[in-house]
């Protein structure tokens, strides 16, 4: 008897809950034969279009590599880059791009609940693979951001090495930060602070428009400022390009050291002939040994310094941010009244649950900053090491890491191609 009573009460409560919570009014009983319409929705972009993007990327990379390695045609490179601005920029509005895809891949490696589309993996891997074979032909103009900067660079000036080298370290820091924030699921900063996408969409915040405009105006004089001093994907392409099987050359035949191409490179990526004196070798060897001993110190010190930043960095993650707000509310026993706080209280999730989630994320940040900092220390140490290694070089050659295969140096070489 007791059980039936409880059952009745619970059924009554269930009905009351349903009617009171979501659906206060009953389904209308139409007499005029009126039929309730379906909600009008428009289907998403067909999947085949996404695959077409990958095919277009593959073809563009192949054509670009052919123009760079085989044809040595600046004109061909130029028109391919115009095509990719139109297709990937104007038509596709820039998403998803290879530069941003490193974040999706990182997120898929670290967060088990994120399922990554195959097309995004293709956008990540194809340019790297092509670069391993042909050098940075992706940068030459398949990347629409590189292509845009290549277009505006009409009055190129050279940047002195003392400025070029430190600025070239920024992409490494940017990469580490972007990967850390992507791995923790905090944010995709590469996408958020993309300076060019606003121009294609004709929509961005005022700050981002200014940032984009500054990069483009700088780009008139400084060749590809974003590619060289910001692009985090460029770091990976740089590594791949150093090891590439084939790479573009300045001369179609043999270098005659005429110096005509000396200032032709818009990104300062031409290695000039180096003569080695015996005393520089002796000096370099001593410095090399000292720096080699100091390398672990750099790594640990940099890792330690970066790990000090884990708390402020972790507040970029929305869960940690919310947890701090709720903690503040608890400590001061009043409400902040923000939308976030209201939304959290309406979910009915326990604050302790939120705090434990936030704590786990902060832990992740702690180890992440250690690893990221150590990597930056290693990079810093190796960069210093490299300054004390001198290699004899006789010819004018493109620097395989920094050369973006834009082909602007081809016309400066007076040597005819070998038949």
């Amino acid at each position, binding site marked *: 008897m007791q059980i039936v009573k409880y059952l009745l009460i619970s059924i009554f409560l269930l009905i009351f809950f349903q009617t009171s919570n979501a659906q206060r009014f009953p389904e209308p009983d139409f007499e005029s034969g009126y039929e309730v319409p379906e909600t009008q929705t428009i289907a998403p972009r067909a999947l085949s279009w996404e695959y077409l993007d990958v095919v277009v990327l593959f073809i563009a990379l192949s054509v670009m590599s052919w123009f760079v390695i085989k044809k040595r045609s600046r004109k061909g490179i130029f028109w391919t880059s115009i095509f990719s601005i139109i297709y990937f920029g104007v038509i596709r509005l820039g998403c998803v791009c290879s530069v941003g895809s490193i974040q999706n891949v990182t997120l898929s490696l670290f967060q088990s609940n994120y399922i990554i589309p195959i097309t995004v993996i293709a956008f990540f891997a194809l340019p*790297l693979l092509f670069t391993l074979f042909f050098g940075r032909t992706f940068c030459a103009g398949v990347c629409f951001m590189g292509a845009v900067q290549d277009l505006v660079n009409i009055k190129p000036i050279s940047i002195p090495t003392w400025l070029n080298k430190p600025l070239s370290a920024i992409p490494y820091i940017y990469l580490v930060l972007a990967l850390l924030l992507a791995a923790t699921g905090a944010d995709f900063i590469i996408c958020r602070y993309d300076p060019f996408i606003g121009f294609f969409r004709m929509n961005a915040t005022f700050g981002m428009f200014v940032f984009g405009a500054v990069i483009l105006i700088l780009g008139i004089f400084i060749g590809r400022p974003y590619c060289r001093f910001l692009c985090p994907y460029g770091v990976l392409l740089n590594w791949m390009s150093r*090891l590439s099987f084939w790479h573009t050359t300045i001369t179609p035949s043999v270098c005659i050291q005429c110096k005509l191409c000396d200032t032709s490179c818009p990104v300062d990526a031409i290695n000039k002939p180096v003569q080695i004196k015996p005393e520089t070798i002796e000096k370099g060897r001593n410095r090399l040994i000292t720096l080699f001993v100091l390398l672990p110190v750099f790594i640990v010190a940099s890792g330690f310094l970066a790990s000090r930043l884990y708390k402020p960095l972790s507040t970029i993650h929305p869960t940690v941010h919310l947890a701090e707000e709720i903690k503040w509310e608890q400590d001061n026993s009043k409400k902040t009244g923000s939308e976030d706080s209201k*939304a959290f209280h309406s979910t009915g999730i326990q604050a302790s649950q939120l705090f434990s989630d936030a704590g786990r994320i902060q832990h992740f940040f702690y180890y992440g900053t250690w690893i990221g900092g150590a990597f930056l220390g290693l990079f810093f140490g190796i960069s210093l090491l490299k300054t004390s290694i001198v290699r004899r070089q006789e010819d004018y050659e493109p620097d395989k890491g920094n050369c973006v295969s834009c082909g602007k140096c081809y016309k400066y070489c007076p040597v005819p191609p070998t038949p």
Partner: protein
Amino acid sequence: MSNEKIEKSILPETGKHLNRRDFLKTGLRAAAFLSLASITGYSLSKSMSDDLVWQIDPTKCVQCGKCATNCVLNMSAVKCMHVHKMCGYCDLCGGYFKPQVKNLDTGAENHLCPTKALKRSFVEAPYYKYDVDESLCNGCGKCVEGCGAFGNGSLHLQINHDLCTNCNQCAISKVCPADAIVQIPASKGYMLKSGFNT
């Protein structure tokens, strides 16, 4: 390099010299290729052939109004969608009229919608049909709030796939206080409310 050393470093099958630098380079190339392959392979193991699209989880949405202002598009891709199958077809609609309105008519002063995107048409006494004109709707969610507070909650905000540029990182998801912006497989289409609980 002594003769003995040179002999050792000759590849038996090609007879070419393999000096230290070439050896290092081949090793590094292999390492680069393998690491690229393993990262790609691992993410492929967690991938799907489908595409991801952004949607609003209507059960989480708190109608803060940020959808209208934070989308990268000038007119937000977030629109109010009406699940007719859940609607009570009321005369006094909490999503259509301002609270404590005098006349239940189509006079503009009585409307909750700031852009007059919510249209009402007579069906039969006492039922009225409500439709959203998506070209006018800016996704502010005022009607959604009204409908949820007084009615069945049949009006709710959703991201229109036709308009959404499918940014890699949805700008609204970053500011959404309720974490309601989620990525779902494109084949699932729309996260719409289902209808009457029966």
